[in-house]
Every structure is written in C-alpha cells, then in structure tokens.
C-alpha cells in the first residue's frame, strides 16, 4: 500500500502532466484513471510522467515534433484525428495523445510494453489497413520514444495545474456515500450529492469547509475510518472508499471545492451537422441506417404465380436463376399450416370439413380472416414478442430464483394487444414510456388504457436480476441488469448489437461508446444504479437490508379491479368478524383468512425524476468514469427527422420525459430500423428465416437482406398503413409464397439449397408450446381459459417438472409459469430458450431426449389414452372410423388409403398383442384389448413425423 506522501508525489507529477490537457476536468479524469491503474499495480513512482527536466534534454529520445508527430499523423490520423475520432482518440495532437481514448491512456511513459499505442501497433492490430503498416524502424521509433518517457518537445504545457471539479468528486460520493446520504435516505439529514447540499450539511454541521480539508467533517470522518462504516457496507451494497478517492476529495476541498460550470460533454450536437468526429459521414451511408424507401413492385414473367407484390419481389429473384414459386400446397396442408402458424393449434375437425369443401376462390382469405379473429392468435403470436422481450416469471441468477408474481399482467397485455392489433407504434410507446403517457398518479380513475400503459412498461423489467440481495446488488450487478435491458431493446427493437458499445466503441458499426451512455441517460429516470429500486423488498428476504426504497410494483390497477378487490376484502373482513363473534370453528376462520387475496399490483417501470448525472464508464468500469453525457440517441440514427427532444410529459411532471422522447423517436415514420426489424421478425416466423437472417443485428456484422426491396416495401407498408401488424401478416400469407408446397426436388436442392429465394415453404417441427397444447387439444382436455396468474409447476423426485395438477392445469403452455431455474421438462426438451436475457430465434433441435419423452413420459401416455377415449366416443368400435377420426383430429385431414389400411391392421395387431399379454390368447374381439390397442395407435400417431412436422 502506498503512503500518502508517495501519493502526493505522484499527484504532483501527474498534475504537471495534465497541466497541458485541454480541459481541467478532463485532466482530472485522467488523473483518476492513473490512480486506478496505480491501484491495479502499475506503479508510477519514478515512471517519469512528463517531467519537464527530462523532456527537453534527453539525447536518446526521438523528437515528438520532428519524428513522432508526422508518423502518427500519417499512419493513424485518418481514423484517430480531428475529423474522425475512432475510440474517442486523437493521435494527431499532443493533447489528444495525453488525453488518451475511451479505454484510457495510450501511453505509459517509460513502459512501452504497457503502452497500448505501442502494443497495438506491435501486435499488428493497428493500423488495420496493411497498406499503412509501420516498418520495423518506425515501430522502434515509437518504442524508443515511449521508453524515453514520451517527451513532448512542444511548448504546450505551461497551463497552471488542474484541480478536480465536482465531476471528479460526485461519482465518488455517489458510489460510496449516496445510499445513506443521498436522495432517498439522508442519515443525519445529510445529502452528499452536490456541493450546495454538502455546504448545507447535516445534523453535525456542514460536510465541507472549502479550502480546508482537515476542518471538513467529510474528510475527518472518512480518514478516521468511521465513514463509510466498514461493518455496514454490505447492508447497502457498497465497497469501502479507496485512499486515492479520499485524496481526490481532499484536493477538491483544498482547492475551494470548485465547480466546473461548462459541461463536460461530448455530444453529436457539439459539432456542426454531420461532422461528429466519432461517427464518420461515410459510415452513415450503410443501408440499415437509411430510411427505407418505397420500392417499385417488379414486373415478372410468371405472372400467374404473382398473387400480390410480395410474390413479385420473390419471383424476380427466383427468375434470375431460372426458378419460380413452387406450386400451391394441397388444401389440407395449407389449412394445417395456417392454423398452426396463426393459432398454435391444429384446425378443428369442423373447420377442416368446411374449408376442404369451400370451392369459392377466396376460401383461403376467409379462412385467414377467421384465424386472425381467433383469440388463439394472440396466444400464438404474443409468444414471439415475449421471447424477444425475455419474459420470465422469476428473477433468476440466484438459487432462490425469486418469483415475479405480477409478471403475468404483462403477458396478458401482450396477448390482448396482439389480438386487438394495437398499432405497433403505440405498442412500443406503451412499453418504452407508458408511464410518461399519462399522469397516472393524479388520475381520478385508472382506466384500462392507463392500466395498459403501466403494465406495458414491464417490458423493461424482464432482465434476469439478483439485485434484491445485498451481496449481488453492488454497482456492477445493477449495471449488468441495465445492460441486459439495453441488449433486449437493442436486439428486439433496434436490430443493433448496441450492447457492444458498453466497454468500447462498436467494432463494426458507427456506435461510439459515448452513444451507449447517452442511451443509458435516456433511461436514467427509471434505471439509476445510484438510486436503485430493488426487484423485491420484503421481510425475510435476504440479509438485513438498510434500504428503505424498494419494490418495482405500482398499485394502479384499473379502478374497477381495485374496487372489486376492496369490496371482496372488506366483505371477507366483515365475514371474519362475524365468524369470530359467533365463535365459528377454527377451520372456518382459517378458510376465510386463506381466501384473502394479495393486493393487485403491477410490475412496472417508471420515471422517478431527478436522475443522477450520467458519466461514460471507460472500459465499462464504474470506477473509471469518463465524461458526462446527456440523454440522446445514437448519432448515426439521426438527421432524417426531428431531433431527439426531451419535453416534460405534462406540466410540473416529476418524470423527465426522456423515455417518451426516445419512444417517439423510435416510432418516427422516417426511422430506418424500427419497421424493418419488426417486419423481418414477422417474416421469419412465417417463412423460417428472416430476409435479414441475423434478426437482432442489422449492422455490418449482421447479414445483409436477401431481398432488400421487399424488406423496404414491407417496412413502408407497415409505417404508412398505421403500423398495423395483421395487415403485414396478410401481405405475407395471402400470396403464392405462403401457399407453396414444401416439397424439395432435385433442381431446388441444387439451385436454392438454403431456400434463400423462398422457392418452397420450410417443413417445420411443432414448437414446444404448439406440441404441448396440441397433445392436450387432441386429447380433448385443453382448458382454454385465458389470462390471469400463471399455473404452478411441480417437480417429481427424478427431476421431471410438469404443470401442477390443479383445477387450472391443462391450460395452454403460455399460461404456465416460466421460472428460469425450474423450467417445465417439456419446454426444455423442445428448445424453449433460456431467457438470459432474451431470445429472437429459437433453436429447432432434434435430440434423443425428445424421443424418450414422447415414448415414455406418463403424461403423454395419459393424453394418448384420453385421445383414444375421445375417438371411441365418436367412432364406437368401428376400426375404420377410428382410424379416420384419429387423422381428422391429429392431422387435420382424412387418411389416405395406405394410411387407412395400415391403421386398421395396426389396431388389429396391437389388440392381438394386448390380448396375448393379458393371457387371453389371440382373442381380437376383446373390448378391453381393443381400447388399449386404440390408445397404442394414438400414441404412435403422436410420436409420428406426420404429427410433429408441418409441411
């Protein structure tokens, strides 16, 4: 551990270094950085950080002005210069080199092997273009210069020593002190978040005496080791204050606690239009950053196959290689496909008959109308959005896997909105900023609309989260939760891997690290790691917590629901009082008590106002704060519309309106990504692969669209026709492309092996949900009650996890609890994803445990028996009719002749086997054996490829 004296020596030395830096505050950030590095074991003592005495007279040192500067300008200046400043690094000026980039200093004087500037070049990583490669001599020049102490033989470091400002001190106080002396809790009435509040002080007087650190209570208490109190740190998830942090506090007070008034920001708006040095103009030209234009529907040769514009776009690409759309599928295939696709269930036998006998030309369109109008549509299509949002009924991460008992309201909101076809722009507005759409606190009545707005914000509460516990609730843990939310938003809505810019500027897309933190500032009113709402706070949960704020629940359910609840509860209270007065037996009292219901709450996200300042975290490290940033949107996604502009959502609102502004920007008709990303996801779920294969990455590292014109045509349709999702579905489904057969012939396999040109429909396996729901559906035991709290799970001793058997069981799988640490075995077997944090595209795997499950699992066995009972009721003991009914119900079609024969024979054979094993000999008319044979037949059908796969 270094002594204070050593630290003073170092800081004195560093002060001389930073004297020349452009901004005083910046220089102090650099100082902090060096201190952090110092802590990490990089010793500066004697490292000679720009010592004037050394810089001027060193013989061996190459000249910066004559040798280094020209070299760096020539080799590095194109990307790390005044105009383009990749990684926030300017290597063309001495000030830029001293300041370093987003990852910190680029030189460690006297230590070339610890200097990124030398190391990156030596490793051949920089410059990236081989044409710029440095010669061995040039590399050696850099090495010698750094080894000599990196002297700047320029006359540019005469400014007075810089001192820390509030921007250096506030982050320290936020991370070490604010939990007890901050916004929500002010022990001893002390708030340490700003200079005025420090001067105001607490019970014991002002916290600081500007100019006199030793007389400042803040310093006295900290130096004495009394604050922050060691033994209570874990209670508030705070790490001890570091000696160098104390030193910074001391120096700031010694200097009179100066406040920098000009802001330490680096915003796109700080530069004239289009000259943001971190986002070069050339990189803005990438297709995905351009507003989609309405493409002209092409003229094609095979006009007879072009039922609509979608077909035309596809045919154009197919005709290029001599292909065209495959012929239409048989009616029964089309029916089964559309039925599973839109409702997640097979067609009802009645629907099969009526559709197959409907000879009118628009029969399929009318079928689609019925399916879109079915309440099952929302249950199927909400699932995709819930995957993208990362829906779960528990927090994950820790053993306890804390439940999220109110999450189901969000699930129901998504299902209802999908059924009602709430315009997608509104759907997004609600989920990103629903709390800023209406003043719910002042509302005299919580209408269903206000309720929806609040429930929708649950979208931003989906990330796995263990911050409810002190030991997993430290700053980095909280920041991880926010990062997951940004990842979800980035991949599901923006189609950008914006998460990459958390620690460094994005390597492929023009997203500087600055823009990541500007985005965090947008969410700051609700997600503030220095003012954290825990996922759950209640007695008995985790170690003793000193936090007084907590919970992410709002009580604003609809006035109707609340009244009903209150009424029920007061009625119960009355009954209880009566029962007690009448001396009712204990179990009667207990029954009444247990029928009480918890207060209805909403798991929500809301802006709490007064957000903490946002600083860039260099290398993603909260101990390494960089410049301050203001809320904003990625610079590369600007210029095509009105700028991101924050307005108070209503007069005198506490909420900042930052997210609302963000949501309005996202849903602007000119936004290049929002509509494209959504129509691409819808396309993928119908056709097996996205027009952009990488659903969550439209950037350079993603895959370019196979049909850019079609993508843009759909996107423009989407935007201009009111963000109506069902309309987009219809565009995709009513054309010839969706009606195609899935058969693969030799030519298709050769010319379009990956189906990149959509020359056939893909054959797909039933999803986990479709399979589960359908097994219950064919057995006649599916409970189609909708909505409400999730069905519980039960675990068998051998590890099998199934929905608990209770009155509400056998509901569709979307209504069963999705616990991160206890997933239903069925879901796990059939590729239900780990929601960590979300999933845009499920795997479609084929593994032996699926076969074992379908063959041996007791529930599947039971469902096969129920299916057989159902068949028995319809077809009595007419074996041919039995076979037919099995096909009508399970396959949505009558059997073909071979199937009919095979089925009949198999049932007879199975009956014989059953009868023999019962010891009854080969007696085939034994009714019990026949019943069992039919069940065996049903089970084989439920295990067959024809049942599990959709043509």
């Amino acid at each position: 551990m270094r002594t204070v004296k050593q630290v003073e020596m170092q800081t004195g030395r560093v002060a001389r270094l930073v004297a020349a830096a452009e901004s005083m505050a910046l220089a102090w950030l650099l100082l902090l950085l060096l201190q952090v590095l110092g802590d990490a074991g990089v010793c500066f003592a004697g490292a000679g950080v720009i010592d004037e005495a050394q810089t001027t007279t060193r013989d061996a040192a190459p000249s910066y002005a004559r040798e280094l500067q020209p070299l760096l300008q020539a080799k590095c200046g194109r990307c790390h210069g005044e105009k383009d400043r990749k990684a926030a690094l300017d290597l063309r000026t001495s000030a830029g080199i001293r300041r370093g980039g987003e990852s910190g200093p680029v030189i460690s004087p006297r230590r070339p092997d610890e200097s990124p500037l030398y190391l990156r070049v030596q490793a051949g990583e920089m410059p990236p273009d081989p044409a710029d490669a440095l010669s061995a001599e040039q590399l050696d020049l850099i090495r010698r210069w750094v080894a000599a102490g990196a002297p700047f033989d320029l006359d540019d470091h005469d400014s007075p020593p810089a001192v820390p400002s509030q921007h250096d001190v506030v982050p320290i106080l936020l991370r070490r002190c604010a939990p007890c002396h901050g916004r929500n809790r002010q022990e001893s009435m002390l708030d340490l978040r700003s200079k005025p509040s420090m001067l105001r002080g607490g019970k014991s007087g002002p916290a600081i005496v500007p100019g006199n650190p030793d007389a400042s209570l803040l310093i006295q208490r900290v130096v004495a080791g009394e604050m922050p109190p060691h033994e209570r740190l874990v209670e508030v998830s705070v790490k001890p204050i570091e000696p160098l942090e104390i030193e910074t506090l001391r120096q700031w007070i010694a200097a009179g606690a100066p406040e920098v008034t000009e802001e330490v920001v680096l915003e796109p708006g700080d530069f004239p239009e289009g000259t943001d040095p971190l986002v070069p103009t050339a990189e803005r030209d990438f297709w995905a950053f351009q507003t989609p234009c309405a493409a002209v529907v092409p003229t094609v040769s095979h006009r007879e196959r072009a039922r609509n514009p979608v077909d035309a776009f596809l045919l154009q690409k197919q005709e290029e290689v001599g292909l065209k759309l495959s012929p239409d599928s048989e009616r029964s295939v089309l029916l089964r496909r559309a039925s599973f696709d839109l409702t997640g269930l097979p067609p009802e036998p009645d629907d099969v008959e009526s559709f197959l006998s409907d000879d009118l030309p628009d029969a399929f369109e009318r079928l689609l109308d019925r399916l879109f109008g079915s309440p099952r549509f929302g249950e199927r299509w909400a699932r995709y959005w819930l995957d993208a949002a990362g829906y779960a009924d528990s927090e994950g991460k820790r053993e306890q896997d804390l439940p999220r008992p109110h999450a189901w309201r969000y699930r129901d909101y998504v299902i209802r909105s999908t059924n009602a076809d709430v315009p997608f722009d509104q759907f997004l507005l609600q989920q990103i900023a629903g709390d800023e759409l209406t003043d719910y606190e002042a509302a005299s009545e919580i209408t269903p609309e206000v309720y929806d707005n609040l429930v929708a914000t649950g979208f931003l509460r989906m990330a796995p989260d263990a911050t409810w516990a002190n030991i997993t609730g430290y700053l980095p843990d909280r920041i991880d939760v926010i990062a997951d939310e940004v990842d979800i938003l980035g991949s599901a809505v923006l189609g950008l891997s914006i998460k990459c810019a958390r620690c460094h500027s994005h390597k492929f897309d023009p997203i500087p690290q600055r823009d990541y933190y500007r985005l965090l500032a947008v969410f700051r009113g609700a997600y503030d790691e220095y003012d954290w709402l825990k996922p759950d706070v209640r007695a008995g949960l985790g170690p003793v917590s000193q936090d007084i704020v907590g919970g992410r629940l709002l009580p604003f359910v609809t006035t109707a629901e609340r009244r009903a609840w209150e009424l029920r509860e007061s009625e119960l209270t009355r009954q209880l009082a009566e029962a007690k007065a009448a001396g009712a037996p204990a179990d009667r009292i207990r029954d009444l008590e247990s029928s009480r219901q918890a207060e209805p709450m909403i798991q929500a996200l809301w802006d709490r106002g007064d957000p903490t300042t946002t600083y860039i975290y260099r290398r993603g490290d909260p101990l390494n704060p960089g410049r301050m940033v203001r809320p904003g949107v990625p610079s590369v996604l600007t210029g095509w519309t009105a700028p991101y502009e924050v307005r108070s959502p209503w007069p005198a609102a506490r909420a900042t309106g930052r997210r609302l502004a963000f949501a309005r920007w996202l849903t602007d008709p000119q936004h290049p990504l929002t509509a494209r990303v959504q129509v691409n996801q819808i396309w993928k779920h119908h056709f097996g692969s996205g027009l952009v294969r990488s659903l969550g990455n439209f950037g350079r590292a993603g895959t370019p669209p196979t049909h850019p014109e079609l993508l843009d045509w759909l996107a423009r349709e989407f935007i201009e026709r009111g963000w109506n999702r069902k309309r987009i579905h219809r565009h995709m489904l009513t054309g010839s492309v969706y009606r195609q057969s899935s058969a693969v012939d030799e030519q298709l396999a050769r010319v379009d092996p990956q189906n990149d040109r959509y020359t056939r429909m893909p054959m797909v396996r039933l999803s986990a949900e479709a399979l589960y729901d359908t097994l219950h559906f064919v057995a006649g035991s599916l409970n189609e009650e909708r909505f409400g709290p999730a069905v519980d799970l039960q675990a068998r001793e051998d590890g099998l996890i199934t929905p608990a058997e209770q009155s509400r069981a056998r509901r569709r799988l979307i209504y069963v609890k999705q616990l991160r640490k206890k997933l239903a075995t069925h879901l796990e077997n059939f590729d239900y994803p780990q929601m960590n944090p979300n999933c845009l595209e499920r795997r479609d795997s084929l593994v032996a445990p699926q076969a074992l499950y379908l063959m041996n699992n007791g529930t599947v066995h039971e469902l096969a028996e129920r299916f057989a009972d159902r068949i028995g009721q319809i077809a009595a003991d007419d074996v041919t009719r039995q076979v037919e009914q099995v096909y009508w119900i399970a396959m949505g079609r009558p059997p073909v002749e071979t199937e009919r024969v095979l089925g009949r024979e198999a049932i007879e054979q199975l009956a014989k086997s059953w009868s023999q094993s019962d010891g009854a000999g080969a007696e085939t008319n034994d009714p019990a054996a026949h019943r069992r044979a039919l069940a065996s037949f049903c089970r084989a059908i439920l295990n067959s490829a024809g049942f599990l796969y959709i043509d």
Partner: protein
Amino acid sequence: MNDCVPDNGGISGSRRDFFQSVSGGIFGAALASLLSQDVGPVRGLAAESRQVDSPPSLNYLQPRSPPFAARATSIIHLFMNGGPSQMDLFDPKPYLDQHHGEPFFDKIAGEVENPQSAGKVMRSPFKFARHGECGMWVSDAMPQLAGRVDDLALIRSMATTNLTHEPAVYLIQTGKMGPGRPTLGSWVVYGLGSECQDLPGYVVLDDPLGLPVNGVENWHSGFLPPAYQGTRFRSTGSPVLNLRPDVPQPEQVVRAERDLRRRLDDLHRRERPGQPVLDARIASYELAARMQMATSDALDVSQETASTLAMYGIGQAPTDSYGRRCLIARRLVERGVRFVQLYINGQIWDNHTGLATDMKAACDRTDRPIAGLLADLKQRGLFNNTLVVWGGEFGRLPIAQLPADKDERKAGRDHNKNAFCCWMAGAGVRGGVTIGATDELGLAAVENKVTVPDWHATILHLLGLHHDDLFVLENGLKERLTGVTDARVVQELLA
C-alpha cells in the same frame, strides 16, 4: 482482440454460409477441413454436397478431430462446488500460525461477504507435510490424495472475480458471470463431438442428495444446440429422465407400437424426399433405443471386482456415494464419453463454520474415491487420454468466520475470490509441479496468477482446441468460452 466478425454476406447457399449461419464456424480457420463432416446442424440442411435422397446425417455428436494435437480425448471434471479452503488443503501459510488471533478485517472489509461474523487471522487446524518425490505440500485432511501428488499439477494461484457462489460458479462453468452461456463441457463436445454414439457426449453425475448451486444451469448448453447439453445420469432410480416408460407396457405391445411408428414414418418420408431432417428424426428414435441399453450397461458397477470397488471406497461410509460416481466416470470415459462432470451435493466445501469438522467430512467423502480414480485410470492406461480436473469456484479467507455464538472452536472461513487452488492430472499434465503462489496470508494470488479464462484455455489446449478458434456466431458476433478476455495457456502445467 475481435469479439465480433463481419458476416461474409457475399457467399450464399454454400456450405461455408451454412457453417457460418448455423454451426457458426467451428474452429475458425480450420473450417475448411471440416467441411466434409457434419457438425451440429441446427435448422435447415446443407444439401449442396449431398444427394437429395441421402442417408441420415444430422449427427451433432459425430467425433471431430481437434485442429491440433490433443493430449487428452476425455475429461473428468471433479467440481468441488462451495469453495474448498486453499490454506487448509494445498497452500500452507506459516504466517497464519504466527499471527493467529490478530485483527485483520479492516484491511479487507470490501472483500468480506459477511462482515458481521468476521473474526481474526486464523491458522489452519490441519497439519501440512511434503509428499511424494516432488515434495508437494498437502494437509493431513487428504491422506489418500497425498499419496498421488506425483501425478498432480497443482495451481495455487487461481483467482476469480466475484465472491458470491452463483456468479462465481457461472464464471467457472461458462466463462461469464451470469446465466445463459454454454458450459465448458458443452463447448468441448461442440468442438470435438463424441467418440461414443450410444451415450451422450457430456454426462453429468450429480449427487442424489441434491443439486449444486445454479442447479441444471451448470450443464446447460446456452446458445449452443441442446445436443451439447450435459445429460444427467442419476445413480439411483431411472438414470436418465424418461429413459424407461412411466407406464410399462408388455414387450409385445412395445414392439408392435415401434413397428407401427416406423411404418408411419417410412410412409411419411417416402412422400417427402429431400428432407434429411426426417431421416435424422428416425435416427434419433434409434439412438434413444440404443441409449436405453448402453446407459444401463455403463452404470452397472456390479461388473467390477471387489478390489476395484474397494479402491473407490464403494460399500463403505462415507465414500460409497462419491466413489460410485468416480467409478462410473471411469466406465464412461472407457466407453468414449467425452466429458464427465461429477458433483457433490449442495455446498459441502462452503465451510463458513466448522472448518475443522465439516471440511474434514468433505475430504473424507471424496479423498479415497478420487485417489482411487487416479490409480484406476493409471493402471488401465486411461491416464494417457483422460484429463482429470479438480477444483471449485473460489477460495476462502485467511481470517476466521465465527458462528452466532462466537465460539472460535467452531470457526470457518468466508469466501475469497482472490485466491484458490485447483489441480489437474492425467493426459498432457506434468505431474508433481506446483504452480503459482499466494501472498503470505493466502489472501491473494500474487505470483503467476491464473484467471478463470486461463484455466479454460488450458483445458481446451489439452484437448487440442484453441480458445480463440472455438467459437459460435451468434447474431453476427463471435461468442467464445473465454469471451473477449486475453487468456493464456498455463504452459508450466503441460507435460
């Protein structure tokens, strides 16, 4: 180092594209050499190089040769979840004896999970001695292992980044401190496939007494296909979930039903040429049937001699349970299973209290079985191709942690992320070496520090894989076990 690669969007419909988009370019540069084999298809098929009516070939677990010479072809991971105490097992600290009882808490306040129970500097209740020809230090808590130190490469300078079980376990299992990533075993099987086509490539032998922290996430395949997920073999009851029918059927009926299913599938497939997924589905039913046989055989330890059983401590308390798992591990690697992972219930190494008794009990349960496993592997020649890895998720503090009644005799130690020990033995490992060192208290690794990514890189190296080249493309990004960190192979450990 690049963690992301731009997609090669220009090539479409080729095998190369298929690998990039589906299997995500196993082995990076060595991709081309693999194009003749089938690796982990997920959806769609690479039909280009195959006849439309080709035989089934959707085999995720096809054995694959590593890009460079492997020392080990199988690995047994003895996961000691809970955090075994380094200064009571492998890393003697005379300083603790000299300064026993001195206060130290204030210096490490930020690194203590339970400050309210933190005590003073505490010496080890165990006695250390040098063992074997190499003279490796081992405490008297592990007398059997002490007899095998010449086979061990001990790392004393392991360090991790979180002192809470869940994140630390996630990190050591998956390379990242959170859920959702493929585990080490999944990566290995993804990279190498399996030598055994009747058993899963990655088998987990968990403790009937309970699951470790993070439960089944410890063997999850994350974003890799589920074929690379660990399969639990239970040592009691049905070894694999759904391996046997919940409702048993007469043999004749089972046969008749199977025949029917085959005929249905044949009929279905004949109508649909060019859909290899249908062949693969039939193959997966056949594999399921083979698994039913092979699993029972592999788990049947009654085929072993009495002396072998005794070597593992089977039939004796308290070693029987762990001994069985160790023996089954040997039987599995013998059959070509790539990755076998052994667990012990709950947190037996998490000795917050009762260090002298509880940690000793943990040693008593595992010491003989592990020593027996090493000896047995060696005598059967399996040591030449099997890597054995022992270790937990973090270490423990040099200060005492006191129980509620503050009775120092029942003291334990709290978590420590800055230092812990692990060892490796077997194929490719230099026996008898001690690598790295901690400070005088055993508080932090100071010499030749080995991070968790280093540890991962070293294991992959021993299996012939390079951590930078084993990746999967996820949404355009290259995802690796070692993530974006610079990992190094611990060269000192290699034979």
